[in-house]
């Protein structure tokens, strides 16, 4: 303001314009376009016919979609709570300034830098019954190897374990960062009061890292609801759709059946699910904070 003059005031716009232009054209415009396409019967090659909520009605009645939503929710449930608990325990154990702890931190984070392709490549040859490490181990023990990737009951847990192994590093780091923010004198006071470990954790550590906990659970839930690569590469969604996730269903509908309108409607449903879950978790935590 003090600099005055219209040109000076417009200078700021010039600094943000390059980003805003790309953001608008490559993110916001497709987002709006997607909502529009979802009301059409549309294929990948440009044919369009307005059918209103037709795609959404089809999705609600589609058993493949029901199964995919069920699989995705089950995967999120099998991944997020154990992953969060495990990461918190590891962070508590590794929250110290020793060399050993640093080495362990490096080890537990190392898998996170790998791409999904490499993770599934590694785990395929752990899990597969004809050439996997677990099969070799079972063989050595004189047992039949379990068909992790082709058995309806085993395939979801197998993908969950692979994902936990892959995703552990990031939550550990977030928890470590959160724990660093807890002032040391609080713990000293607790120690003077002869508070036990559990009491200290329950009444000091946990409340202090509540925001980090929320962040981890939210990021992980949003991430796992979009699980794609592991299912596509490890099992192709099989057996019998037993590991087909929502995003894999979207991929198949769009690039296998070329039904862009229907695929976009499925994507909007997932978008809505993600928004609801995120807002719900946020509300649950902030509500408790207000209460006490």
């Amino acid at each position, binding site marked *: 303001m003090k600099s005055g003059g219209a040109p000076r005031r417009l200078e700021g*716009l010039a600094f943000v314009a390059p*980003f805003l232009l790309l*953001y608008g054209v*490559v993110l916001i415009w497709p987002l709006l376009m997607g909502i529009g396409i979802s009301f059409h019967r549309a294929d990948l090659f440009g044919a369009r016919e307005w059918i209103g909520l037709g795609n959404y009605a089809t999705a609600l009645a589609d058993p493949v979609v029901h199964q995919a939503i069920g699989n995705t929710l089950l995967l999120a449930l099998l991944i997020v709570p154990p992953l969060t608990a495990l990461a918190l325990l590891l962070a508590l154990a*590794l929250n110290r*300034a020793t060399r050993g702890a640093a080495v362990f931190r490096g080890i537990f984070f190392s898998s996170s830098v*790998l791409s999904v392709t490499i993770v599934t490549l590694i*785990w395929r040859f752990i899990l597969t019954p004809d050439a996997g*490490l677990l099969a070799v181990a079972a063989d050595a023990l004189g047992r039949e190897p379990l068909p992790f990737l082709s058995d309806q009951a085993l395939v979801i847990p197998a993908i969950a374990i692979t994902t936990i192994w892959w995703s552990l590093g990031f939550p550990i780091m977030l928890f470590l960062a959160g724990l660093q923010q807890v002032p040391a004198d609080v713990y000293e006071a607790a120690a003077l009061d002869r508070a036990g470990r559990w009491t200290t*954790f329950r009444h000091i550590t946990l409340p202090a890292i509540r925001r980090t906990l929320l962040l981890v659970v939210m990021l992980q839930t949003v991430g796992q609801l979009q699980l794609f690569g592991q299912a596509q590469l490890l099992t192709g969604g099989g057996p019998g759709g037993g590991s087909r996730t929502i995003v894999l269903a979207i991929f198949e509908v769009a690039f296998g059946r070329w039904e862009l309108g229907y695929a976009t409607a499925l994507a909007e449903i997932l978008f809505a699910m993600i928004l609801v879950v995120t807002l719900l978790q946020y509300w649950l935590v902030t509500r408790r904070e207000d209460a006490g």
Partner: protein
Amino acid sequence: MSATSPRAGLSGPVLALLLVGAAVMLTPMVWTLLLSVKSNAALLGDSGAALSPPYTLDNYRAILADRLTSRWLLNSLIVSLGTTAGVLVLSSLAGFAFARLEFPFRRSLFLFVLLGLAIPEQAVILPRHQLFATLGLHNSYPGLILPGLTGSFGVFFMTQYFRAIPRDLDEAALLDGASRLRLFWSVLLPLTIPAQATLGVFTFLASWNDYWWPLISATTSDYYTLTVGLASAQMNYAQTSGLGFLMAQAVFASVPILIVYIVFQKQIVRAMAGTAVR
């Protein structure tokens, strides 16, 4: 548990559990490494052979001689470095303006950018695929790089960082008659180098490992990134040169990213700390 003093070593039972955990983390990687140094013939029908010698580097020699794998490596480097450079430039410019300059609609535009943090890729990726098809951007480097430049996180992150720099510096520079661009370029930008490093490492990692978008945008193998190329090799396992070769590819593709991780470990940890405090 964290009530113990931060300098204290790990107690016996905790250490034992950590060692088991570390073994679970590392065994799959060691197994991959072992498979990659076995001849493909020896692994045929008996992957347990990986547990004993002889070992060989033939698979790695085959990769270096393989035109496609080197091409994918080059593509990954171009796309990841291009995305990283783009994100740093765009986020720094926008972050500086949002933190330091007065202009019309500044607050609403910032909120508009923050909105992007809540938009999942799934809601955008199919229509973007249509848009890029119309623009003829598939199977090209700009087609692979542009979507990575639209992330709101970088702008948010740089805005926060610029805000934390004391304002006295600006006043002094402006009194000396420096222009806004000069203030940005010679006074403030050098102070943001730690933030640039952090944002750069994260952008590089995310871009290198991105799978969904390059999978649908690059459809000719000449434009595959390593991530997509390895997926195609994995899906056509029966037609590849064999298990040992496949695993050597995996190791080969992980090396650049592991180097980035080891070199920039400090930045990564610091960035995490920053994210969690907010």
